[in-house]
């Protein structure tokens, strides 16, 4: 069993894959359906004396409903699961098992990062494809190329987010600490994005790409954020690996 096989087996044989798939698929199938039937739902819940005017749902509304749920609850669950995998030194005995057999320690961390980020983004893509199908069926046409580009840009953000978890895990010695620090960093970025000058450059801007590209936003608007996300992912991961290498157990 190689370290890559071990990480694949971790997802296949533990229950980590179940919540990821469940959340993203539920959001994918449920988001556009909720957007489509929201007027009827609201109408059924209000009295005859109250009038609620809701515009007819457009395809972009279905995607927006998916992303708002998937990128909050789904991202939170992804970070917690990733922290459980990447906080290797949270269990000193297990850490010693790997550290006394594998050098450099990158050989342990890289498969964990790649497989975790791959599984998280893969589950997200499945959810996004479900959302696309539901949207096309219930709400109308979506440009497939622009939609897939938006999904790809969100996937890039997820690889960045898991790299942040890796860095947090290299700085803390517990799963809770790693998850908490990563969530703190990932929440700080959208707050920083409130500054108009910073927003186009922030990786968190990519979280709006699916909705933006389902509408008229030019793809070029996400170019700077994508470049920064790619560079930041590499930089953050390199910093995490350096920290893991030099850490004492």
């Amino acid at each position: 069993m190689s370290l890559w096989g071990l990480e694949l087996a971790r997802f296949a044989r533990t229950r980590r894959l179940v919540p990821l798939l469940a959340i993203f698929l539920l959001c994918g199938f449920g988001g556009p359906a909720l957007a489509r039937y929201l007027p009827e739902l609201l109408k059924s819940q209000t009295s005859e004396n109250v009038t609620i005017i809701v515009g007819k749902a457009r395809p972009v509304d279905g995607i927006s409903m998916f992303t708002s749920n998937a990128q909050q609850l789904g991202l939170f669950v992804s970070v917690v699961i990733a922290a459980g995998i990447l906080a290797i030194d949270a269990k000193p005995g297990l850490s010693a098992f790997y550290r006394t057999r594998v050098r450099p320690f990158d050989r342990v961390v890289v498969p964990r990062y790649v497989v975790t980020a791959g599984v998280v983004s893969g589950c997200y893509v499945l959810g996004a494809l479900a959302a696309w199908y539901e949207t096309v069926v219930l709400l109308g046409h979506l440009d497939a190329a622009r939609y897939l580009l938006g999904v790809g840009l969100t996937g890039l953000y997820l690889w960045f987010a898991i790299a942040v978890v890796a860095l947090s895990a290299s700085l803390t010695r517990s799963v809770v600490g790693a998850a908490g620090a990563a969530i703190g960093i990932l929440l700080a970025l959208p707050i920083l994005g409130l500054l108009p000058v910073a927003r186009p450059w922030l990786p968190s801007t990519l979280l709006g790409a699916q909705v933006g590209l389902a509408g008229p936003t030019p793809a070029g608007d996400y170019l700077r954020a994508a470049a920064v996300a790619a560079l930041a992912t590499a930089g953050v991961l390199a910093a995490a690996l350096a920290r893991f290498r030099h850490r004492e157990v």
Partner: protein
Amino acid sequence: MTSAITTTALRKEYPGGGGLHGVDLDVPTGSVYGLIGPNGAGKTTLLSILAGLRRADAGDVRLALPFERVAVCPDVAEFEPWLTAREVVELARALTAPDLPATRIDETLAATGLRDAADRRVGGFSRGMTQRLALAATLIGDPAIVILDEPSSALDPGGRFEVLDLVARMGRERTVLFSSHILGDVQRVCDTVGVLIDGRLRYQGPLSTLLAEHVQPAWTVRVRGDAGAVAGALGAHAWVRRAAPTDLDALRVEATTLADGERHLAGALAATGARVISIEPAADDLEEAFLRLTGELPGGTP
């Protein structure tokens, strides 16, 4: 004799004065070296530095063989709980010696008493079984140097016996550095010892020399007849430090030196005409030597 592991002026400072304060370790190749010391003496710190898990503040570590030929078994072993014992050992083999045949996995599991538990998930293992698995994962790579941190501390008496037997067998083919606070275990399997107290090596060398230098040589003699009379006769010899009856048919004889006692006791007993039932070393244990070194028994050098 060549050295498998040496350290020179090794230092590791912890807040509060703990750590290592200039340790010159010398583990002879082919020896079973017992590192003993009280809790907090620095044993785990020293082994962790040798294993590459911690860095020394100063000093040198020299291993005679490359990292791949050295295996480490930590005091509290942990494994992926969703793997089976066989998979853990297989993973350890893949990480350390992928060229070794897969048949070694079952052999190693059998040697560590885990044959029947090979296909059980390790998440349900007791601490003793986990310790055995740690030994299996250590041995699977056929290491030339084995570093074991308290390998028998979690085991029941039967398990300890088996593990110590395994360590003793390891010593025939490998260099073993073995830390423990159970002195009887060390005395049973080690030929060389290092006594680490407060981060300093207070003694290092053959176990027999430590016992000769720090243990009061004494024997329990059982005779048929009056033990008091025999004790009185033996007490007249210059090499006898003290001879006194401990029972109607038993006496304790303390010699001035181990060599004198071994050389003269049998002859002196014969000269008394006593009917000797048995002669046994009374106090040649490592615990006494250790307590003398730590100053907890008189005659030591604290």
